[in-house]
């Protein structure tokens, strides 16, 4: 059986739609997960005992259970609890849940990597706690975290393939959808694999550049 190029050419618009949606979802999830990560990291580093405990539990659950099961949980269990979302929102919620779990640890490490003397210096200048966090610790922590964040964009992008299972039209869904009707599994999965690799490799190339630049600045 030969490789049917014409078939793939016909599918290019649909493939591009899938790739575009994969990218859009990944970026949305990353941004939301960054927010969760920052809030969680602040709770873990400067919250009270109870807040730290809750955040710790969240992080452990998010990181130690399968991403697929978390997606199913939001998609199948939430409606039975009276929380009805469409598949897109369900997918984004689930992915933000586990993505955020990883980013809490990333930001916590970033915050802790900011030298203590910086905080002491800020205190001696009579800055308020909020000012210290927002103006002193945070900008430096973000810089330290940036390479990891790009790394987690790759993780999120790869995990977004799971969203096909709940019917979100992204790249993996496109592949399944097409081969369900046309049986060109080899051509389709080759094309989809190539598109994933192009996206992942581009991001990791970007990561390399960012890492090299920041190595000298830090």
């Amino acid at each position, binding site marked *: 059986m030969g490789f049917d190029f014409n078939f793939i050419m016909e599918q290019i618009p649909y493939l591009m739609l899938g790739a575009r949606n994969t990218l859009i979802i990944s970026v949305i999830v990353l941004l939301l997960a960054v927010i969760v990560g920052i809030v969680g990291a602040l709770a873990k580093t400067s919250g009270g005992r109870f807040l730290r405990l809750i955040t710790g539990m969240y992080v452990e659950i998010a990181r*130690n*259970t*399968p991403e697929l099961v978390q997606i199913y949980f939001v998609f199948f269990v939430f409606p*039975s609890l009276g929380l009805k979302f469409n598949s897109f929102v369900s997918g984004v919620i689930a992915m933000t849940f586990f993505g955020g779990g990883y980013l809490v640890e990333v930001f916590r490490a970033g915050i802790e990597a900011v030298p203590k003397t910086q905080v002491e210096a800020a205190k001696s200048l009579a800055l308020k706690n909020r000012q210290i966090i927002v103006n002193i610790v945070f900008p430096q922590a973000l810089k330290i975290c940036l390479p990891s964040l790009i790394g987690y964009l790759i993780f999120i992008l*790869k995990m*977004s393939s799971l969203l096909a299972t709940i019917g979100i039209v992204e790249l993996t869904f496109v592949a*399944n959808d097409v081969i369900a009707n046309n049986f060109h*599994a080899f051509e389709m*999965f080759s094309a989809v*694999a190539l598109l994933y690799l192009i996206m992942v490799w581009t991001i990791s190339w970007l990561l390399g550049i960012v890492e090299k630049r920041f190595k000298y600045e830090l």
Partner: protein
Amino acid sequence: MPWDIVVKNWSFLAAGLWATIEIFVVSMIAGTVLGVLMGVLRTSRVFLIQITTRAFIEVFRGLPTLITMFFVYFAVPMLFQIEIPSFLAAVIGLTLWELSEIAEIMRGAIQSIPKGQVEAGRAMALNKAQVLIYILMPQAVRRMLPPLIGVYTRLVKGTALASLVGVNDLVMAGKIVVERTLEPLEVYVFIMAVFFIINYPLSVLSRKLERKLI
């Protein structure tokens, strides 16, 4: 919450859990052996070996494991006119991803050991294999351990994908029970708890070793 759903369907869920464990153990062993091998080859000085192993690793680390698994399950049989059973497809898909991760860890561990040690070993008339086995490996293994366990925790989570190529694993069993009983909450809490109980000790161990070895 009517927890008896889990109890009533226990034998069914347990059969699923058993399949999940089988997939995990088989891919863990296969991935570790092949990954260590690939990692050693990756540090080879022969350009052709270097470039092929690197390409292999970059491809299977870059692809979503689900796509690799689908490729093995749907595309490969069409290409070669053979049939690949679900279980095998799941194991191959997970192993390809895992061995690439482990190869990368292995390469990092070997290259982090000072060159002087290899030179010293060679100066003591050890051959290349002896240097690898007696000098590099014992140190590399110590450094590899925390990230290796990290890969295993991700592998445990990855086994859930087997349900998507039709393996009757824990996730699939849970899905079937939910379809029968229409009580998703108990079943999914149970599945998450099972995975958590397997994974949490592993991730604690990984963190502990990391602190100890650095």
